[in-house]
């Protein structure tokens, strides 16, 4: 019997320091923001921060398998804390990752083993107790949560087991998927010189329209049919807009602008009432106007509007 146990001796000697410990494996799956996780820089790492000055932060870098692995998670030796709650942050310069809360409680064994109680998503600024659905850990075992929990109890009988999970005691391995929130965009493109953009400027557009009218209209007028031209001119005389136009012209040429009617000499301006036109009186107001000067009419119209 003793002889049989001999090959186990070196293994037994390791038991005190290979007590039950927990492993947390964070894998980074491909996502729309990060189609190829292999492109993450080697400086990508995850940190477990407790906020307790006696518990040092635990940090571990990205592996070649696009995972971040915490092995042998254990509780600090300080007797005061029976359980520890960590903030898990994943830092990569190129991408922003979600934050998680990781609770570690003492394991079943007497000598300070540890078990991951649960992993939840957490949000910066929200209360620590406000947590999302459980992603993995011991508490997730009962309910069918999304996290996969692997509990492998090594029997300790085979001395040649090379796999690290097959150590004596209980090894808990919790796997979660890290969520990429966004990609960091550092740069701003300089707005270069854009001739089309310059042309789309309203001032330039106004100028172009004005130029078109100045140069295009006389040319158009010269080229159209003489009958049509006459008709158009007639229409122009009758149209209220034309009336306003000539009224203003008349007022301008009238110097002090006392009575436009006197100077205009019965032009189309004399029978246009701007104020009433603006007030929406239309043709009827024009008919009433009679011989009154447009200046007076303006005042009257204003008065009417007041009333």
């Amino acid at each position, binding site marked *: 019997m003793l002889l049989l146990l001999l090959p186990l001796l070196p293994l037994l000697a390791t038991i005190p320091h290979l007590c039950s410990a927990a492993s947390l494996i964070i894998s980074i799956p491909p996502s729309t923001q990060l189609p190829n996780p292999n492109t993450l820089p080697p400086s990508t790492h995850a940190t477990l921060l407790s906020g307790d000055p006696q518990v040092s932060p635990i940090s571990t*870098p990205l*592996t070649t398998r696009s995972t971040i692995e915490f092995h042998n998670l254990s509780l600090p030796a300080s007797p005061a804390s029976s359980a520890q709650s960590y903030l898990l942050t994943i830092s990569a310069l190129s991408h922003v990752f979600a934050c998680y809360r990781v609770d570690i409680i003492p394991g079943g064994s007497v000598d300070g083993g540890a078990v991951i109680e649960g992993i939840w998503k957490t949000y910066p600024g929200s209360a620590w107790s406000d947590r999302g659905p459980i992603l993995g850990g011991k508490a997730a075992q009962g309910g069918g949560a999304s996290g996969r929990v692997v509990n492998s109890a090594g029997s300790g009988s085979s001395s040649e087991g090379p796999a690290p999970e097959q150590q004596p005691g209980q090894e808990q391995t919790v796997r979660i998927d890290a969520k990429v929130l966004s990609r960091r965009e550092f740069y701003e493109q300089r707005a270069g*010189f854009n001739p089309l953009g310059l042309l789309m400027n309203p001032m330039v557009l106004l100028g172009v329209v004005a130029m078109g009218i100045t140069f295009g209209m006389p040319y158009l007028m010269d080229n159209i049919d003489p009958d049509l031209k006459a008709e158009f001119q007639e229409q122009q005389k009758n149209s209220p807009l034309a009336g306003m136009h000539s009224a203003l012209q008349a007022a301008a040429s009238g110097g002090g602008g006392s009575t436009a009617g006197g100077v205009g000499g019965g032009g189309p301006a004399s029978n246009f009432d701007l104020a009433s036109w603006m007030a929406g009186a239309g043709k009827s107001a024009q008919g009433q106007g009679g011989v009154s000067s447009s200046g007076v009419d303006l005042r009257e119209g204003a008065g009417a509007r007041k009333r």
Partner: protein
Amino acid sequence: MRLNALLTLFLSYVSSVHAILADEAYHVDYHHALLGIPQAETTFFHQPSSSSNASLLYTISEKAIIGAVNPKDGSVVWRQSLADSLPEPPTVVEDVVKLPNEEQQRALRGIGPAKAGLLAEEGSGFVVSYYGSAVSAWDAMNGKLAWQRFMPQGQHVKSAQLIPSGRDVSSSSAVDVVVLYGTEGGTVTRLDGSSGAVVWEYEDRSGASPRYLASTKKSIYYVSEQSAVLAANSMKIVSLNTENGREDKSHVLKTDEVVTVSSCPNVAFISWHERSSRSMKVNVLGSNKVNTLNLERSNEEEIEAVSVLPGCGDSSPSHILVHVQTRNGVWAEVFDIDSDSAEVRKAYSLLYLKGKGAFAVSIVDEKPHFTRITDFEIELYSFAPGIMVARWPRNQPSFGGPGHAQAEVVLRGQSNYAIRISEVAKGGEWTLMRNGELVWSRPEMLANVVAAAWVEDVSGEALAHELDFEGHENPLRAYTHRLKRHLRDLEYLPAWLQQLPSSATSGLLTSKAETEKGLLGHKLLVVATSTGQHVALDPAKAGAIKWKRLAQEASDEARAVSLYVHDGVVTSYVNKWGIMTINATDGRDISFDQSDAHFTGVIIAPGPVAPVAYRISRDGQPKPTAIDDVAKDGTYLVTRSASGQDVQGWMVGRSNIKLWTFSSAAGSRITNVVARPAHDPVSSIGKVLGDRSVLYKYLSPNLVLITSAKRGSFTIYLLDSITGTILYSATHEDADTSSPIPSVLSENWFTYSFFGTSDAKSPSKCHQLVIVELYESPIPNDRGPLGSSSANYSSFYPGSITKPHTITQSFVITQSISHMSVTQTAQGITSRQLLCTLPDLNAIIAIPRYLLDPRRPVDRDPTREEAEEGLFRYSPVLDLDPKFFLSHSREVVGIQKIISAPTLLESTSLVFGFGGLDVFGTRVTPSKAFDVLGKGFNKLALIGTVAALGLGTAVLAPMVRRKAVERGWKL
């Protein structure tokens, strides 16, 4: 003042989120991505993949950074910090004050300093490093972790070796790792090369302290030092079976002080010698025979150092090159090892040469070749005949003499040798030479920068002096002086005329860096390293080194404390060494003063003639550099004792009087003391509110911000530095005080950041950033006690101290901040940015000040007046927009300090970060570049527009004239 206020108001609106422009990134900023000074044993050329012949340079530096460098251009392919992932015991504040107890001290001695090692095997695809308690395998190409294993109970790894795994290569790794760890009685563990799993363990229970591990193809040798009580300096060598770790045989050797153990595929040997001994003893591990090697030369110089370089070919025999360094020269002896008879025979010696030199061993066609590198040439010796087969002259000597070197030799044809040499100079510069030609050099000494200062270009000041002279002389003399000056200037006229056309055309087509430099000011950066070196960097030329100075005979403990620049002279204060002055333009020594060289800090105070330096002793007492060279009367200093127990206020001058002492509470320690920057102009004394009333800022030049931390909580105190009155204090419970609590004080506000819980009812673990603004009174248009009493106000009268009205807001940030600083501009009109180091992202970020306005309305939208002020709704989470990142996609590692300097342009501020590893510099425009035309200004478009307008006028003018004439005829 009013104009300034208006401008400030205007600029605060201008400043919106603005990012680094894609065409400015990598042009306005510069970055030296460093590794630290590479160590001799852990630096080598290695082919990362078996498919290609290209090799990379791998190293572990003295900063425990593992990295790969491309030998073609010297760029870093990847790097990782070995110390980062170590589960270090937390530094609790109380323990820092109190000395560790007896038991802890013994434990510390036993563990010893962490030792780093790097192993690589061709074709394995990974490199294995050990440091502290961790053994890690890294992908050789991209630097990602393959596996990592921590030794139990944090025991340090002493040594490690790679051995052939003997398994099927296709399914697993071709090599396994054998690790030796432990303090009293070592443990040898064989780890699977593909997973890091334990294959077997051998434990030594004798209590001897483990020292070395060596391996050959056949067996593993474990070397332990017997306890001193039994037998001093005796080494027990145990050979272990590679398959199962069983002990095969063992023998004990009596050795001397300096022991070296080397491994080759077919032989491993241990060599030892006394310091400055003329002989050396070698034992081939596995045999009892001790060979004595003579290091005699006719010249009777004392031997200073002996180092052993193994030359292992796969074929027998192997060779040893013993590099012997004397005071004036260097030579080497080459020995053969016969692995069968365990005998070591002298083959030949390489000539004694005066001066310093380095040797490297490289294998060409299974035969070792030896390279000797001196300041002038590179000599290659082939083993077989022991003659020089090639030599190349060097085009420039190494900085401070050759330190150690690695060579990669290629033989083309019969005798056509090509050589690549990676050399680490004693001055810390890492260079690569191809056939003697310098290919690249990396300034690794910049990884140790501890102090930096800006140097104004003084070339323009000569003219200023002359003009000053002309202004103060009588008109006739001034006129003749001026005439002479102009005549002297005439000699530059032809050259100026010659380059006029070229400068005109080049200025038209591109915005030249030279004009930019003229606008920003000709500034140099002088940095001092912890080893006493001084280097000048040119920010305008992408941080290129302008000059470098090596400290002569500086002791290892020497540590630069402070740099001060005045009138083109750099004064460097190096603790435990002395005070040296250097010419800032060329780096030449001016003077060196070694008297009373023990101080923890230096304060520069205004003196009657020139500024005066005060050295601060460990207990916080200021001492003038010279007895009669004292500051102006009425100069006040604030000092901190080295123990962190108290902060003292002093009045210095003809006599030094301690005015007040601020002692930290029991169990707590002062971790940080900051004052307003020396150059901190304020453009407006008040803040104009939306209703045109003014909130007056509490502006005092005598403010000191003190952080006092104990376990789990810290307190921030704002002190008046003249009376020592506490103006404001705030305590944060449940904060992580083991991580840094950075703070910064400027104008009328200060900020600090920490990791902790935000409030007691619903704790949240998050990083927080707190901003506090100080005002004279909570009521607008009211200056509080200052306004009512009178214009006579004195801070000396204790009753006159008015406490500021403070407005505070705190924000949650998603990243930790390890250091804070603030941008500085010439007039302070430009809005400020908070510069922070994000250690987790290896980035430097500039947070605009308007985001951190504590007057942002909480839980409601801003009123119209508040919106007019630029305030917007408070949100507890402050998003660190990627657009704020000054270091954009660069990875700037280990920045511990950021300094900022104004330029000639009000809009622009220069920024430089240094301290831990990298150095990084850039320039920032917090309110956009409002006073300079940037790259966005298109000269061609402007000229084109003017030309088009001219053309239009030329076309339209005749038309308009014709029309006018026609109109004239119509009337």
